[in-house]
């Protein structure tokens, strides 16, 4: 994903908040979005837009599923009088490299219940995660690697 994608997203958002879907509205949104982006972005990357759309949908579905399922776990722990949680700090080795990838991954990690991104290490090699139910550290890492991160990288790298 790059600036153009972002710009398109903004164009669509414009249509969304306007509540009317027309070419004119999209163009207006795109232009406005362009101005806004040029005001807020530090760098701009080259245009590289492929077939990430489908991957994005897959990611979204997977993500929502994860959220719903594991949410219930957390809610359970919260609502029951005993504390099942076994908190731990996990250093998760990153494959994601770009700012955007890292950010999205970190966000998703945070949104999946049970894990919360604390930070990214200075050298960008690790995501530092606070896990609530971390009986098996390796399993947690493995699940993320094959689940979220793989799908995410499919979206961002095509």
């Amino acid at each position, binding site marked *: 994903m790059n600036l153009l994608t972002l710009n398109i997203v903004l164009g669509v958002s414009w249509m*969304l908040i306007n509540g009317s879907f027309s070419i004119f509205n999209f163009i207006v949104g795109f232009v406005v979005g362009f101005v806004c982006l040029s005001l807020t972005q530090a760098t701009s990357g080259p245009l590289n837009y492929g077939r990430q759309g489908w991957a994005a949908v897959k990611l979204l579905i997977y993500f929502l599923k994860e959220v719903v399922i594991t949410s219930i776990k957390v809610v359970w722990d919260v609502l029951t009088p005993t504390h099942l949680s076994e908190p731990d700090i996990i250093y998760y080795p990153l494959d994601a490299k770009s700012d955007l990838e890292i950010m999205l991954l970190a966000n998703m990690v945070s949104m999946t*219940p049970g894990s919360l991104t604390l930070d990214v290490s200075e050298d960008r090699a690790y995501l530092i995660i606070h896990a609530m139910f971390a009986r098996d550290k390796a399993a947690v890492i493995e699940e993320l690697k094959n689940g979220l991160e793989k799908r995410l990288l499919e979206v961002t790298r095509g």
Partner: protein
Amino acid sequence: MSTVTEWVLSILLLTGGVFLLAGSIGLVRLQDIYMRLHAPTKASTLGIGLVLLVSAIYATLTNDGISISELLVTVFLFFTAPITAHMMAKTALHQRLHRLERTQNQDLFENARLRLSPDAELDDTVSKP
């Protein structure tokens, strides 16, 4: 609007309410700031997501046009909630806030605070709390 839809909407709404309440209960009940961060970030966000979903569906059904602009709020909340949580966690680390004794790998907190890799040796200048 059919009764079934109304039922579905009601259930969704109630679920949302439960999540919202759960998030807030978690905020009260959980024992350290790191764990307290989990609850509102996830449960409350999910809850508000459901409420917004109901609102969107309801608006779509009652008004003539489709009203999915609520989705924008949802997306926004899902996007920003983890970032807020991250910032708070970072703050907590920075301030070396009280952490639950049960937490494993306690020594990694200091590494995390300084954003160092797990195997990094902390020099003497960095005093552990």
